[in-house]
């Protein structure tokens, strides 16, 4: 660029010669120069603005195009990056037993819906649908199909055969959607633990499967968490033991004319519940609706007696009193206690079963003969405060921590005012209502040498080392007493050769819903542990309103009802648990090979 001088000599001289002011020329030139500079800088700024504008235009266009593409295209599942890697995760993880056998899994099936505007022959379709599904309401369906509705659900789950049959109707308005359904291949086995599952949010192409009860509800988040990669939930239950327990208990319940029955089998070191049965039961594949009327929820098969049913469990509690008295050093199992009557706390007389009078008995014999007055006197020595502490340590005041959703409903009922009378009655199991699961945890503490174990439904890898609730020695003395109950006491039908059963019976009158007790309705309980010298398992069997005719008499006590059932059950399940009987096997007949 040629720079024009501000004062060009030629023009200045000319101007001076003409007598003009040369400064005018300089200012004129300066103005021109400024104008040029202004134009140049404007141009540069405009160029920059243009570049910036183009940049923003491109950026916004790119975002708009991408958003448009995302909004208008069909969503596609991302393809797994590694072939044969984690695989396709199921919507809901399986539930397996302690040996990996399936208790709950998923099954692909279809749902059936209709779009009436697309139907060719609604009347004919209704006729044929009712033939395939007899439970459909024909008039209702016809009204739906011929009315204004654009979408009608017909069936949530249909089998492949039914799907084919509907397909054969050939109506374009009948459509299928894929569904994943929860399948319990073992039917009613462990129904109360499983609970059941139902559909949550439903769409045409998929539906949420959510747990509605039992472990399905308790572990709903775990089971549905894709981060687990479909890893199954392993329970502590054993399928074969559970099946055998259910069979024996059902037979026992029928034989003893009982209205309901429950059993809990628990490992005393790990707290694993190996089998838990509550009868009557139901099929979780087709879970019945909860009762909407009626006073007593325990009539429904959905009611889990093992964890929800809080009952006064009667004399089974006596061993806690005896164990605590020994633990505190007040007595030992040979100390003589006077159990003769009469004994009165306030206005209430404390009596024995059938108004017997045992006289002076050792502590062990108090348990063997199940003396109310004997345990009552022990409890008075212990005192209300220490008794409460002990029972609280055994978990008798809170719902059991077992991981079934219903367990939180099993809140024990304890007296509002824990006076001297309560101390005495609770010492023999009246006035405090707990579930059989509570009792199992309490007996497990005696069985394992004095440590509390919290019952769990999940597979454990090692023993729980819970809080110590009583000394080793007290627990050992209590076990010896329980063994004696079976060898020479009220539970003689519970003897199973080879397994040295120890246990305590309990027969409690059933409370009326409006206060007071029934005359002839009882809850019979047998709490057992085996083998008694080194217990591995605790078994609780409870029968609701049993009654059996034996030796020409109607009998309801646990010794005649719950104990034989428990004995039979131990004989069936102990071999399945791999416990070797500690006797000579009877007459070896020679082993025959049935297969190689």
């Amino acid at each position, binding site marked *: 660029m040629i720079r024009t001088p501000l004062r060009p000599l030629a023009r200045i001289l000319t101007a001076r010669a003409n007598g003009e002011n040369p400064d005018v020329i300089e200012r004129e030139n300066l103005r021109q120069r400024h104008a040029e500079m202004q134009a140049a800088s404007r141009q540069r700024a405009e160029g920059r603005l243009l570049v910036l504008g183009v940049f923003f235009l491109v950026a916004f266009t790119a975002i708009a195009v991408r958003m448009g593409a995302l909004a208008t295209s069909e969503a596609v599942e991302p393809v797994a990056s590694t072939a044969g890697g984690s695989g396709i995760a199921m919507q809901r993880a399986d539930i397996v037993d302690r040996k990996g*056998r*399936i208790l709950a*899994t998923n099954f692909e099936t279809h749902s059936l819906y209709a779009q009436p505007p697309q139907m060719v022959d609604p009347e004919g379709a209704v006729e044929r649908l009712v033939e395939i599904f007899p439970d459909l309401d024909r008039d209702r369906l016809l009204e739906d199909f011929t009315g204004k509705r654009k979408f009608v659900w017909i069936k949530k789950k249909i089998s492949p055969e039914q799907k084919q049959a509907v397909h054969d109707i050939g109506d374009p308005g009948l459509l299928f959607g894929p569904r994943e359904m929860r399948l319990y291949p073992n039917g009613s086995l462990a129904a109360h633990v499983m609970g059941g599952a139902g559909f949550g949010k439903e769409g045409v192409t998929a539906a949420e499967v959510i747990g509605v009860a039992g472990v399905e509800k308790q572990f709903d988040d775990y089971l549905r968490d894709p981060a687990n990669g479909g890893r199954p939930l392993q329970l502590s239950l054993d399928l074969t033991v559970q099946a*055998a327990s259910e069979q024996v208990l059902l037979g026992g319940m029928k034989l003893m004319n009982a209205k309901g029955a429950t059993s809990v089998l628990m490992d005393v070191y790990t707290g694993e519940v190996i089998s838990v049965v509550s009868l009557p039961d139901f099929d979780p594949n087709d879970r019945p609706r909860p009762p909407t009327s009626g006073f007593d929820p325990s009539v429904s098969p959905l009611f889990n007696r093992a964890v929800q049913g809080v009952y006064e469990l009667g004399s089974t509690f006596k061993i806690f009193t005896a164990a605590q008295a020994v633990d505190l050093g007040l007595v030992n199992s040979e100390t003589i206690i006077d159990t003769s009557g009469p004994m009165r706390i306030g206005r209430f007389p404390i009596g024995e079963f059938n108004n017997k009078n045992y006289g002076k008995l050792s502590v062990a014999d108090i348990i063997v003969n199940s003396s109310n007055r004997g345990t009552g006197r022990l409890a008075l020595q212990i005192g209300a405060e220490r008794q409460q502490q002990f029972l609280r340590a055994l978990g008798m005041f809170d719902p059991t921590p077992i991981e079934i959703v219903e367990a939180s409903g099993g809140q024990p009922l304890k007296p509002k005012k824990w006076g001297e009378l309560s101390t005495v009655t609770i010492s023999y199991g009246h006035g405090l209502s707990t579930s059989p699961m509570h009792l199992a945890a309490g007996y497990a503490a005696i069985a394992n040498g004095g440590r509390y174990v919290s019952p769990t439904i999940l597979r454990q890898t090692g023993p729980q080392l819970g809080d110590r609730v009583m000394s080793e020695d007290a627990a050992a003395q209590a076990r010896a007493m329980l063994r004696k109950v079976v060898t020479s006491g009220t539970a003689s039908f519970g003897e199973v050769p080879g397994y040295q059963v120890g246990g305590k019976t309990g027969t409690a009158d059933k409370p009326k819903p409006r206060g007071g007790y029934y005359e002839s309705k009882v809850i019979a309980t047998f709490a057992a542990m085996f083998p008694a010298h080194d217990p591995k398992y605790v078994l609780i069997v409870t029968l609701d309103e049993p009654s059996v005719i034996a030796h020409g008499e109607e009998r309801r006590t646990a010794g005649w009802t719950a104990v034989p059932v428990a004995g039979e059950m131990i004989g069936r399940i102990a071999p399945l648990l791999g416990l070797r009987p500690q006797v000579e096997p009877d007459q070896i007949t020679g082993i025959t090979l049935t297969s190689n």
Partner: protein
Amino acid sequence: MKTLLYIVTSLAVLGLAFWAYRENYTTQQVLKETRSLQRQIGAQQARLSVLRAEWAYLNRPQRLRELAELNFDRLSLLPLRPEQFGRVDEVAYPRDEDVIEFSNGVEVSSLNARRDQP
């Protein structure tokens, strides 16, 4: 000299273009195979879960009990009792002629499987 350089360069460009073209197609082919394999894996896994459910259903304790009762004449199966525990040394070794060798096993895992691959 310059001409030679131009020829070599253009030949190299041609060669590289051809190589890139081929690589592109091989990649697409591999991707396609991967997708197909993953579809197959998915189908097989669905099939596997169905088979597992079926296995569990056929082995449910109630059915086995009924079968044992139905076939009591032939098998004489009874529940395990404590008396049946024996010692290992009471069991005889099988004789050689008792051992059956499986030579003609039939693979059934993919029977009735859905065939939804090309």
